[in-house]
């Protein structure tokens, strides 16, 4: 008699658990379907496209194996654009992390108006790229731009010249603009990380006679190591694949000096309509990013409970 009730109880519990799990899955079902249809499928479809000679101007396409990849790697310009991507990514990420950390160190101390200041400094995070692009084209305009005017007055630029029209400086301009719009994220993360560092270690180090600089190098920086690694990886993914800003400010010019892989993918797709070829370039970028994504997802700690 007794064993029977406990068996029933057990059955009830199992069925409750099964129902509970089923309902839980029902809640996430829409997202699963959406991600399968519009993220996973497109990514796989892109893999397939990269092995075809698909084009936007002809109806049929056929499987061509690695032909697109061979074509890419035998193109000398590809290496130039790849190097541009590396330069753009490296300096943008280094700049935004350094600036983000610097500002976080400045504002982490409690001060009057601190919250308002932090809010103000976060603004670039939501400024549309198109706004930044139009302002920068305006202030760097060769004839009427205020920054061009200052540089021309200072003798750093010749009259009627713009930094955006010069092969070397154009890349630096877009990197600086990109740092301007992307430092708030690292700033916020560093700010939170700094706040969570145990104050006692500072007290201990002051007692031991360490100066401010030593405390920063030996106490603070090691505590920020993991944060920095995860942040850097995430920002590398975003920066290396970021298209909008360069497209709108320089369009990849002058003479390809700011063309990076995202611009190249766009040009191959909608400039010359060779979408098989474009898909192959995006696969190369994707494979490089894949490692970063795996690293980020496993190291970020976001999926832990």
């Amino acid at each position: 008699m007794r064993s029977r009730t406990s068996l029933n109880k057990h059955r009830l519990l199992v069925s409750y658990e099964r129902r509970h799990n089923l309902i839980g899955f029902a809640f996430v079902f829409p997202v699963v379907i959406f991600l399968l249809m519009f993220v996973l499928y497109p990514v796989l479809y892109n893999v397939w496209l990269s092995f075809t000679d698909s084009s936007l101007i002809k109806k049929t396409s056929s499987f061509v194996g690695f032909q697109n990849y061979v074509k890419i790697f035998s193109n000398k310009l590809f290496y130039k654009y790849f190097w541009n991507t590396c330069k753009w990514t490296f300096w943008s990420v280094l700049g935004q992390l350094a600036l983000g950390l610097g500002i976080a160190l400045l504002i982490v101390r409690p001060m009057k108006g601190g919250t308002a200041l932090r809010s103000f400094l976060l603004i670039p995070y939501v400024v549309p790229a198109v706004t930044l692009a139009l302002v920068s084209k305006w202030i760097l305009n060769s004839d009427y731009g205020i920054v061009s005017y200052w540089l021309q007055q200072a003798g750093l630029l010749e009259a009627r010249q713009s930094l955006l029209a010069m092969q070397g400086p154009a890349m630096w301009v877009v990197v600086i603009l990109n740092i301007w719009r992307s430092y708030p994220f690292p700033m916020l993360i560093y700010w939170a990380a700094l706040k969570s560092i145990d104050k006692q270690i500072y007290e201990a180090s002051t007692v031991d006679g360490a100066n401010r600089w030593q405390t920063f190098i030996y106490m603070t920086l090691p505590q920020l190591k993991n944060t920095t690694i995860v942040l850097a990886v995430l920002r590398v993914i975003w920066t290396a694949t970021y298209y909008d800003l360069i497209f709108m400010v320089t369009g990849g010019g002058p003479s390809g000096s700011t063309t990076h892989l995202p611009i190249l993918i766009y040009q191959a797709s909608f400039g010359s309509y060779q979408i098989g070829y474009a898909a192959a370039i995006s696969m190369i970028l994707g494979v490089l990013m894949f490692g970063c994504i795996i690293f980020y997802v496993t190291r970020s700690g976001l999926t832990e409970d």
Partner: protein
Amino acid sequence: MAKGMKRTKISRNIVVGILIAILVVIVGFPLAWMALSSFKPGVELFTIPPKIFPQNWSLEWYKQAFSNDDVIHYFLNSLYIASVVMVCDMIIGTLTAYGLTRFRFKGRKVIMISVLAAYCVPPIMLMLPLYKIMNTLALSGSHAGVIIAHLTVTLPFSVWLLVSFFKKLPKEIDEAAVMDGANEVQVFTKIEMPLCVSGVLSTGIMAFIMSWNEFLLASVLINKESMKTLTVGLANYISSTHIDWGIIMALGTITTIPVILLFALVQKYFVEGMTAGAVKG
């Protein structure tokens, strides 16, 4: 000794103050310059040396911008697309975050990881396949296509932000309600929803901002002038051969102001959500 320390403290405060002032100028200058330029009449826009403040404030450029039907379309299109994206994100995002944080079903971990991985898939990699898919689904050139495309970008972000909100809500309330005989759906609608309304709304507004700002996918999926979004229309203006700087500055200003205001509204939640579990060391 004490006096010396006080002095170094004061001088340090001065240095910090100067650095902050420089930062504020660097961040504020481009936006302020855009807004100021938009109020300068044509003559002043092109004087050398440029003056910082307009001598005669004028609304000329705003009038000209809005006398163009296309511009009004851009606005309404952006508003429509971003609003639908916002609502979809709030509904699907909340369901997902609730399911992921309150249930322990098989495959839960896989889904969490997939959402995070999807968050990392950049728009440039989705551009081409989405373009082809929308053609197949007969959605190219439609706003529905852009909305779906924007959801691929915003949904993983929203889920991620909402999961961090739901994690903070105490589970004990749920359990107490279940003890009292409430079922899962009732727990969700009667208990969780009211508690997380502000979090869900903030997430929705962030999705609105992301959709409003998005350029690449919207530019690829829409061809017709009257269907374009604000960012796409504006980008066309800056890349045209004859640039009407005054109109562009006016349009840039009205594109940016709503975004900054909305962000100010939700910033507290954004900061909490991003720093809660964003990058754990």
